[in-house]
């Protein structure tokens, strides 16, 4: 710590030198906050580090599928080159690379395969248990991944006839459509 005399001398010198850098008076410091840290342990030091982000997500060329769901339609793709039909739409054909056009899919199909999830990603953990199914449609070459409702693990089987249902208020997510058994399982 400087003596009072020394401090005074510095201050005087500062005033005398009008064009030079001004000396610093008082306290220069970061403001203190009550933020603190969530600490899990200290050796090694492990703290909570929050991270969050909102994306401006464009569905791009897939957009008509999602606007279609809001109108109660299932939109797929058909290759303009080779005629291959995709239940999950794609802009270009996987078989021949040709451009595709939009087609409307039937609203009924069958369970091609399925599972019941008792755990899940954090985003979906609170929804467990839920059923996932890949649905096959007559006249369409590929499948569609959906949630399957109204049926338990014990009741689902490969080949189960299912039909599409749509949310009344669309969220513009692929879960705007879900499937239920066509008949009592």
């Amino acid at each position, binding site marked *: 710590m400087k003596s009072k005399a020394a401090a005074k001398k510095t201050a005087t010198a500062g005033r005398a030198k009008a064009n030079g850098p001004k000396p610093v008076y008082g306290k220069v410091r970061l403001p203190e906050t009550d933020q603190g840290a969530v600490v899990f342990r200290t050796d090694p030091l492990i703290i909570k580090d929050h991270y969050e982000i909102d994306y401006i997500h464009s569905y791009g060329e897939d957009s008509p599928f999602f606007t279609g769901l809001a109108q109660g339609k299932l939109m797929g793709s058909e290759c303009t080159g080779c005629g291959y039909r995709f239940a999950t739409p794609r802009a270009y054909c996987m078989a021949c690379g040709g451009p595709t056009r939009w087609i409307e899919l039937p609203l009924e199909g069958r369970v091609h395969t399925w*599972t019941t999830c008792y755990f899940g990603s954090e985003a979906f953990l609170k929804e467990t248990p839920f059923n996932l199914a*890949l649905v096959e449609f007559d006249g369409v070459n590929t499948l569609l991944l959906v949630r399957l409702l109204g049926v338990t693990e014990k009741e689902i089987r490969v080949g189960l006839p299912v039909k599409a249902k749509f949310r009344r208020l669309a969220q513009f997510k692929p879960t705007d459509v879900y499937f239920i058994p066509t008949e009592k399982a």
Partner: protein
Amino acid sequence: MRPVYMISGGLTKFTKAEPRKSFRVMVKEAFDYAMRDCPKLTLDRIDGTVVSYFSDHFTRQLMAGIMAVDMCGLVPKPSIRVEGGGSTGGLCFQEAWRHVASGWMDCVVAMGFEVMSHVNTWKGNEFIALASDTNFDYPVGGFYSGYYAMMVVRHMHEFGTTVEQMAKVSVKNHRNALHNKWAQHHYDLTVEDVRRSPMVAYPLTMLDICTMSDGAAVAILASEKVAEKLCENPVRVLAVGQGTDAMRMSDRPHGEVPLLKHEDANWYKGLKYPGVHSFRAGRMASKMAYEKAGIEDPREELDFVELHDAYTSSEIQTYEDMGLCRYGQGGKFIDAGKPELTGSLPVNPSGGLLACGHPVGATGLMQAVFAFWQLQGNIARHNDGDGSFQVKQKRGMDRRPMRGAIHSHAGTGTYVTVSILESTRSPMAFGA
């Protein structure tokens, strides 16, 4: 392409969480292990690095690769990062192979790591699920265990595969790991234990699924000239093969099986392939690797396989993709004990991902390290003198050198690598 040899390898013991060390230090420790195991190799001999890690989300550190490289004292030499989901480590190994095979470099370090413990397990599952189509698949319930569960439900439907057969894979791999000090889990299990553990996604239980982990692994590859000079017991990288398939399972075609040399088209009449029951990328990678290695029948010409058993189901599916048995026979293959340590073709003698864990970017290189030690006959040397999981060569000593395959696999079979490694020691050294 010129011959390429693996001259050393190292790894950290994989663990659910390693908070005491950052990824850079884990890589450095794996690298130092490899350097110690090849004393003539000095830093100035190394021409460059290939670094693999899967997810920037887990690390929350972009350009982490260069930080691992500079920690190892390997700047300002060339380096590149490789990424391809679960097969990131396998792709890294093969990229290092290309560096040497092409003549561009004489000595390259392939280094991989993953730190998955900085988020909770379910957030980690969310990050992994972002490796599925984020327009159509992830928002429906993005969960990789769910995806693999759907694939094996179809396998069960097509071929009659049972949950008990899957459980036997878990029992086998954990049993193999009982004597592997590098393994994370030392579980002496029964089929009932596997089935009684909590259901994650029908039919997969917790013990059917590998553990997200922290860890690092390193493989050092070199040209023939450098290998001869620096390593007394190098292992030849005989061939590499790779394949891909569509990201979305829903897009997988229903066509015909690409046949291996020993297979007959009549075996697969009426089978719609790959659908979602098989991994076409695994078949393509195997086919390419076998053709380049001159392997006519992998059942006879491989002595062991370290394959990507992230799920017990995918191990069974992979037996078939690799032609270790016919499509549809994977369940019977494990029933017959063939992939056991004492069977006709040991699969995952180390314990695989199920027992060792799956720090994604390190996993494919871990397989390379275990295969390297196997083919050197050095398992005991790296395992406190316990050679229990050292594979013996299965046939007469006058035949070809001992060989193993390593198989690395990404998200529902999108990228798969198969690399064939061959011993340079006399087959007699393995007590054939």
